[in-house]
C-alpha cells in the first residue's frame, strides 16, 4: 500500500548568504542622538525607523575611499529605487566625522554632486560621538593645519525598519555584489 505523506511546510527564518558583509549576531538598537541634515533639519533615531537605511561615516575632504564609497552607494540607491515596491524605502546617510569643516552648507554642496536623495548629517562632537560609540566606529585625526585627514572605520552599516543595525559590509566590495546583498536582505 502506498503511503503518501503530506508534509506541512516548515517556516524557517533563514538569512541570505552575504558575499560582501556579515550579519550582526544580534540586531543592535540605535541609541538616541541628535544631528542635523544638510537642509538644517533635525535628524534623530526616529528618522531611522520605518525604512531601511545605509549608513556610512566619512568626511568631505577625504580624497579617495569616501567619494568612492559614496558614489557606489548613490548608484545602489538609484538602482534599488527603480524597483517600484522599494522606491522611497531606502535612505543613504553619510555622517561626518569632521563637523569642524563639514558645515551644513558644505555637506549640501558636496552630496548634491553624488545624488539628490543622499542625506548628510553633522552636529556637535558629543552628538556624533553618541552614534560612533553606539556602532563602535573608530576615528582618529591625522595631520595638522588645514590638510588633516582621518583614519576611520569605513564599514557600511545596514539599519532595518525597526531602527536596529542588522548587517555591515566592506567598502571595498564590488558595487554589483554589494547591491545584490542589500537587495537580498530588504526584498
Amino acid at each position, binding site marked *: 500500500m502506498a503511503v503518501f505523506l503530506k508534509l506541512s511546510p516548515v517556516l524557517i527564518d533563514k538569512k541570505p548568504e552575504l558575499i560582501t558583509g556579515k550579519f550582526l549576531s544580534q540586531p543592535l538598537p540605535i541609541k538616541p542622538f541628535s544631528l542635523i541634515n544638510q537642509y538644517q533639519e533635525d535628524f534623530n533615531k526616529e528618522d531611522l525607523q520605518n525604512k531601511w537605511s545605509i549608513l556610512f561615516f566619512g568626511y*568631505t*575632504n*577625504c*580624497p*579617495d*575611499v569616501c*567619494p*568612492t564609497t559614496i*558614489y557606489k552607494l548613490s548608484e545602489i540607491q538609484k538602482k534599488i529605487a527603480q524597483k517600484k515596491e522599494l522606491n522611497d524605502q531606502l535612505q543613504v546617510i553619510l555622517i561626518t566625522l569632521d563637523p569642524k569643516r563639514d558645515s551644513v552648507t*558644505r555637506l549640501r*554642496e*558636496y552630496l*548634491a*554632486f*553624488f545624488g539628490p536623495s543622499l542625506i548628510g548629517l553633522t552636529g556637535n562632537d558629543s552628538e556624533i560621538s553618541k552614534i560612533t560609540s553606539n556602532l563602535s566606529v*573608530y576615528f582618529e585625526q*591625522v595631520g595638522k593645519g*588645514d*590638510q588633516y*585627514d582621518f*583614519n*576611520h*572605520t*569605513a*564599514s557600511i552599516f545596514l539599519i532595518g525598519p525597526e531602527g536596529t543595525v542588522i548587517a*555591515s559590509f*566592506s*567598502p*571595498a566590495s564590488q558595487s554589483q555584489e554589494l547591491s545584490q546583498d542589500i537587495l537580498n536582505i530588504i526584498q
Partner: protein
Amino acid sequence: MKLLKYTVITLVFISDISLANLSLENSWVRAAPMNSTKMSAYGLLKNNTMSSFNLIRIEASGFKNTQIHQSQINKEIMSMKELKNFTIEANSEIELTPGGKHIMLQSPMKIFKIGDSVELLLFFESSYEEKVIRVNAPIKREAP
C-alpha cells in the same frame, strides 16, 4: 616592394617600444564636488625597461600640491599615508586605484568638471637616467 613593406613595419614596431618604456596608462581623475580641496588620480604605471625608477616629484596642472598616497583598509579601519619613497621595479607594473595607491591632488586652483583633463607630469630617475611621463588624465565619475 615587399622588402619596403617589411622595413616600414619594423620601424614602427621599434618606435612603439622606445616610446612606451615608462608609462601611465588609462589615467583618470575622479570627479569631485566643486568645493573639494583634494582629488585623486589613478591609472596603470608600467615600467618596461631593465632599470628600476624612483619617483622624484609629480606636477599636476591646476593644483598647488601633489603627493603619492596609499589608502588601505585593515580590520575595517581605513587609513591613508603619504609614500615618501616610491619605486617602480624593472619590468613591472603598479596599479594606482581607488582604495589603494593613488596620486593625491591638493588645493585645486580652478573648478574641474567631468570632461576636463588634468595634465600630469611624473618625474622619475634611475641610477643613470631621468625620465618624465606626461599624460592628460580625463576627469570621470568612475573608473574607465
